[in-house]
């Protein structure tokens, strides 16, 4: 069933209190509650590159700092860089006087038209590689710091372990009670102690030399005030922060940025620890192994046509109700009593009192000519406007009691739900019937003055 990405007029209440359209909600089959993306637990399946769709294990991604090694982003606008080829006349290797055309490659952004030539990089002779990463100017210092702190951390860890075993050895009864474990303890203690003894004889690794603080620097050159500022030659702050090691102040020093990896994630309900959404491992595939989107299980209400509203006047609004499950459902619409929160309700709604029966969602109905005898439903023509396959249109009277603003209505929807998950576990063939209740908020538009 198609949904609109930005149209959030009909919203369901999630258990965490947020109101979201059903395309953004998940239904936990075991606790039978609606969950949204914010109140579930996200788990990382695998990182992948959004451009080349390369899957990589999380450890490899950590090594590469969560960046793809082959794909680059434009440093100015962030779009993916495309490799383009040009033909250049290069003196051939056999005969220096003649020149043969050779294919040279450069990268260009199709959005802001930045090219690697703008950054001063020479064209490469291979199409897929060769773009070297510049080394961090502070790499040496960072490495010495890391090494010295790593050795200090190791020593501290060994000291901690030594203290632990020293304490245990003081309990004299401990060793005698458990004959075998005392032998094991001796084995454990010995190698640790031997390490420590080696370390103690070794001299302490020299601490890295401290960088002396800068105390004196040249004053501001007076040219800053008289020189014309060329704004196109200066980088934006966002450009500089994309390359934090270099932070180039001039646009001619901007280099292509490695593309950031995205993460394929699976969602898990916090209360019952079952998976709500588990996509396929391959980043190319859009299928799901487990897909429990609320849209596929809960009847969906949609506004059928816009209507004009005026204060204290009754307007008839038609809604469609569609049933996505493979079993027919009965829907009851109940008003909410006593809640006059103006934020969510600015109109009174007169809902159909009788139960609405929805037929099951039949995929083969698309191919039907309509000759097949449909299930007979006794519909009150004042309430049910039309009925087709698994859809139903019902009319409700809306009376806004606010003078201006948006017309919002809220009511409860109770429907039958046949839990297919529980059925698999139990021995019964019939899935158990449960009644689920949801609170629905609908925004019908502005009041016409």
């Amino acid at each position, binding site marked *: 069933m198609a949904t609109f990405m930005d149209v959030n007029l009909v919203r369901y209440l999630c258990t965490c209190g947020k109101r979201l359209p059903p395309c953004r909600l998940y239904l936990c089959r075991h606790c039978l509650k609606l969950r949204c993306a914010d109140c579930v637990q996200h788990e990382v399946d695998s990182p992948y590159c959004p451009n080349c769709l390369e899957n990589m294990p999380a450890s490899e991604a950590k090594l590469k700092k969560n960046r793809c090694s082959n794909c680059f982003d434009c440093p*100015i*606008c962030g779009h993916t860089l495309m490799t383009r080829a*040009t033909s250049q006349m290069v003196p051939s290797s056999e005969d220096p006087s003649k020149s043969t055309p050779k294919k040279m490659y450069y990268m260009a952004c199709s*959005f*802001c*038209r*930045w*090219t690697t030539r703008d950054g001063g990089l020479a064209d490469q002779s291979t199409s897929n590689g060769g773009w070297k990463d510049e080394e961090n100017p502070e790499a040496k210092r960072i490495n010495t710091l890391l090494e010295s702190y790593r050795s200090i951390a190791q020593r501290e860890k060994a000291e901690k372990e030594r203290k632990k075993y020293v304490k245990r050895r003081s309990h004299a009864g401990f060793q005698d009670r458990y004959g075998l474990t005392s032998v094991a303890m001796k084995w454990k203690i010995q190698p640790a102690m031997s390490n420590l003894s080696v370390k103690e004889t070794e001299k302490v690794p020299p601490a890295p030399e401290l960088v002396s603080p800068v105390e004196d620097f040249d004053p501001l050159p007076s040219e800053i005030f008289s020189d014309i500022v060329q704004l*196109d030659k200066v980088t934006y702050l966002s450009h500089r922060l994309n390359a934090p090691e270099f932070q180039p102040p001039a646009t*001619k020093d901007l280099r292509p940025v490695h593309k950031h990896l995205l993460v394929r994630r699976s969602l898990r309900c916090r209360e019952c620890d079952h998976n709500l959404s588990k996509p396929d491992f391959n980043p190319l595939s859009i299928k799901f192994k487990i897909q429990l989107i609320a849209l596929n299980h809960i009847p969906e209400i949609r506004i059928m046509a816009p209507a004009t509203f005026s204060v204290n006047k009754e307007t008839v609004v038609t809604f469609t109700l569609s049933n996505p499950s493979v079993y027919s459902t009965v829907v009851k619409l109940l008003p909410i009593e006593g809640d006059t929160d103006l934020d969510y309700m600015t109109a009174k709604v007169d809902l159909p009192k009788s139960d609405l029966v929805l037929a099951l969602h039949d995929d083969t109905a698309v191919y039907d000519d309509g000759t097949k005898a449909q299930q007979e439903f006794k519909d009150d023509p004042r309430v049910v406007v039309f009925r087709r396959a698994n859809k139903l249109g019902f009319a409700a009277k809306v009376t806004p009691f606010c003078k201006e603003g948006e017309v919002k209505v809220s009511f409860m929807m109770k429907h039958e739900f046949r839990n297919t998950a529980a059925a698999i576990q139990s021995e019964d063939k019939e899935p158990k019937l449960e009644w689920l209740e949801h609170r629905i908020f609908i925004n019908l538009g502005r009041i016409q003055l």
Partner: protein
Amino acid sequence: MAAPNKSSVKIAPGAVVCDECELIGDITIGARTVIHPKARIIAEAGPVIIGEFNIIEELVHITNRFPDGAEGKKNSQVMVIGNNNVFEVGAQIESTKVGDHNVIESKAFVGPQVELTSGCIIGAACHVTTGEKLPENTVIYGAKCHRRIQRERPPAQNLQIDFLTKILPNYHYLKKVSKAQSPPK
């Protein structure tokens, strides 16, 4: 009101102008320029002179509009378009001076006060209406019309022009090339 002026279109030899395009007014088209069908060139307020090696794609509206308040004065302003420009699908140009090697991307709008020099790229759906002469090699991109200066002008489209010159006559009728005029004495 005088009778509607006869469309006087001078097409240089080598230009490929499809018959389904609308050419109204005094228009001069240079050699090796390709005009796709459904392009509209309307020389309302004066003649339009288009240079060589240009590509004018479908649904491009090149209009030499009357400036505000000067309705009715024929031949008041001349619109000059240089060489090697590319006008992508749906672009609307009302600027009176367009230089060389510019690229006006799809659905862009260039207002009458703008003057494009050379090497400029007006990004897709960008509306440029400020009254200024854009410096060379300017790139305007994005919904907010960000600007930046390129190092070099956009690459030439000669390959595309050769391809179109070969293929378009196979599928479309072309307007006839006007005879070479005798030089004025």
